[in-house]
C-alpha cells in the first residue's frame, strides 16, 4: 500500500521534471542583451487606440519607421508581409505585425494604414505624440531623429532598422532587419508560436492540479 503510493509520487515528480525540462527547451534561447528591452505601450491606429497588451498570447513583429522612407521601410514591410503570407491561416490568427511611425508630423494613422495595406492588410500602422515615441524609443533602445522642419518640407528621418520579434508575453526575444530572408523570420515566428502553445498547455495542467 505505502509502496504503491511512493511509486505514484515518484512517477509524478519525474513527469513534472520531464515536462519542465521539455518546456524550457521549446523556448528558444533569448540573447542576454535583449533582456529588459521593450515593454507595453498604447498608440493610435486608424481604428482607435492599440496597446501591446491587446495581443497577449500572440506572437508579434514590431518595426519603427516612417512613410517617407523609400528604401529600408518598404524592404522591412515586404519581408514581414512575405513572412505572414507563408503561414497557415491558423498560425496567422495568432500573429500580429505593427508598424510604428516616428514621424507623426506627417504620418496620420489613416495615412499609415493606407501605407501598410499596400504590403499586407494585417500590418497595423501606429503612431503617437513625440513624447510617447521618445519614451518608446528608450524602452526599445531605438534611435530616431526627426528634424525641426515643417510637415511639407521634404525632410528625412534617421531611425534604427530592427524588426523586433515579441513573444506571447510581449517580450522582445529576437531582432531581425530588412535584409532578413522572410523564410527565416517565418521560422522564428513558428518556433515562438509553438513555445506559446506549449506554455499555455503547461499552465492549463498546472491549473488542473491545484
Amino acid at each position: 500500500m505505502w509502496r504503491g503510493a511512493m511509486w505514484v509520487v515518484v512517477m509524478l515528480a519525474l513527469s513534472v521534471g520531464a515536462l519542465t525540462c521539455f518546456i524550457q527547451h521549446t523556448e528558444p534561447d533569448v540573447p542576454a542583451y535583449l533582456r529588459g528591452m521593450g515593454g507595453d505601450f498604447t498608440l493610435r491606429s486608424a481604428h482607435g487606440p492599440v496597446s501591446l497588451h491587446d495581443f497577449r498570447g500572440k506572437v508579434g513583429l514590431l518595426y519603427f519607421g516612417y512613410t517617407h522612407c523609400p528604401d529600408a521601410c518598404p524592404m522591412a514591410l515586404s519581408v514581414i508581409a512575405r513572412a505572414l503570407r507563408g503561414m497557415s491561416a491558423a498560425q496567422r490568427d495568432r500573429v500580429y505585425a505593427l508598424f510604428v511611425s516616428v514621424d507623426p508630423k506627417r504620418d496620420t494613422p489613416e495615412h499609415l494604414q493606407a501605407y501598410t495595406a499596400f504590403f499586407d492588410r494585417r500590418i497595423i500602422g501606429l503612431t503617437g505624440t513625440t513624447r510617447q515615441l521618445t519614451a518608446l524609443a528608450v524602452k526599445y533602445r531605438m534611435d530616431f531623429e526627426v528634424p525641426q522642419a515643417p510637415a511639407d518640407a521634404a525632410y528625412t528621418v534617421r531611425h534604427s532598422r530592427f524588426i523586433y520579434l515579441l513573444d506571447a508575453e510581449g517580450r522582445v526575444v529576437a531582432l531581425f532587419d530588412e535584409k532578413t530572408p522572410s523564410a527565416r523570420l517565418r521560422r522564428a515566428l513558428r518556433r515562438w508560436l509553438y513555445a506559446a502553445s506549449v506554455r499555455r498547455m503547461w499552465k492549463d495542467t498546472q491549473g488542473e492540479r491545484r
Partner: protein
Amino acid sequence: MKRWILVVLCLLPVWVQAEEVEVRDAWVRLPPPVADTAAAYLRLINHGGRELVLLGVRANVAGEAMFHGPGMRPLGTVRIPAGGEYRFAPGAAHVMLMKLKQPLHAGDSVHLVLRRAKGKPIQVELPVRDMRRLERP
C-alpha cells in the same frame, strides 16, 4: 555616303558615353500609392581614364531628387575613380526621389539625368518594379 557620315556623327556621342560610363541594374522600387517618395537604384561603372564626379540628379517623375547614402544621409557629390564603380543598391545608397508628381505603377519608366562635373549629363531610363512578391532585394 553623306548620310552615313551624319548617322555615325550622331551616334558618336552615344558611343563615347556608353564606353566611358556603364549603367547596370537600374530600377525604381514601386512605393505604395500614398507615398510621395521612391528610391532608385543603379550601378555606375567608370571605364574612363578619369575620375567621374556626379554633382546632382534630376528625375522626370519627382519634384526633387538627390543622392542618399546609407541611412538616408544626403550625399553632396558622388565620386567614382577611374576603373571603379559605385552602387546605389537596396539597403544602402540610393537615388532619393521626393515630391513625386503622381503615383508610380509597376512597369512605368523613370528618366534620370545625372549631372557630372565635366562632360555631358548621363541619361538613364529605369523601370519601376513591384518588389512585394519577390524575395530580396
